[in-house]
């Protein structure tokens, strides 16, 4: 599998999809003009990775700060692809701003919806 690495922009997160390391990370703001199109190759990569190619250990870090409703939905699709897939040891981390009283609300929505993934909240 080829890796995907995208640099952070003003409205799109840095993306790391590293096959050999089993490392997946989204970091930054997320409201690109064509949000769904932005996330399609990421979701396709994840469907392949979790379709029988997962490493013995996979780490997923979600470090999104501000994001639009299309990203909300794309995140659901990302976690859905993981939960429906095949994996061995899996660590999913949701990073949030400890100073933001809303910081855990999004985490709680996804953690409840994808209980099998045992998503961990990580303050930063």
């Amino acid at each position, binding site marked *: 599998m080829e890796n995907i690495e995208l640099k952070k922009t003003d409205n799109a997160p840095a993306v790391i999809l590293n096959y050999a390391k089993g490392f997946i990370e989204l970091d930054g703001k997320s409201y690109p*003009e064509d949000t769904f199109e932005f996330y399609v190759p990421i979701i396709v990569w994840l469907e392949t990775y979790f379709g029988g190619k997962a490493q013995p250990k996979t780490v997923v870090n979600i470090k999104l700060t501000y994001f639009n409703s299309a990203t909300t939905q794309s995140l659901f699709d990302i976690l859905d692809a993981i939960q429906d897939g095949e994996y061995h040891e899996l660590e999913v981390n949701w990073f949030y701003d400890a100073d933001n009283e809303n910081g855990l609300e999004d985490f709680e929505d996804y953690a409840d919806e994808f209980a099998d993934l045992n998503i961990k909240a990580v303050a930063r």
Partner: protein
Amino acid sequence: MTSDLEIVIEIDENPIYEFSPTINEASIVASASEIERILKSNHVNPAKLQDIYEITIELMQNILNYSYGHSTSEDNKKQATGKISLSYWSKEDVYIISTTNLIALNTQDKIKSKIAEVAGLDNKALRKLTREKMRHRDDKHERGAGLGFIVMARKSSKPIEYNIKAIDEQVGNFTITLVI
């Protein structure tokens, strides 16, 4: 007809920031960054800043994607016109975000339906609706499940207010207002 996008930030009716670019991806980024900078300089708490920032982007992207007469430039970037204002009312310690843009009147029933769907729902019900919408989408590679108004309602402290005023038989002005 509306003018180019106009952004006004005011405190108790005294504008502290305004400009009027054509709305496109670059102007959304520039506007969002400037709004973030101003709110941080006014020591707005992080939760309220996040809500204002995200709703502003949501509304601007709605104008870009759905307004009547939006177009695509030579470099394949969308552009549109509209008006957006952000105001702070010190008595109530609330921010009010309002946008106006043109819509095709044959889309108004869809807009009304989506706003009616979230009217009167508390935060718990809105969170439940968010999850139901995401879960029951048929094709994950297709565009949205209509989360925009739900997300906005979750962040707004009062019901979404809107008005649709016909300009002629086909086109109208759509104004939407949220309180944060």
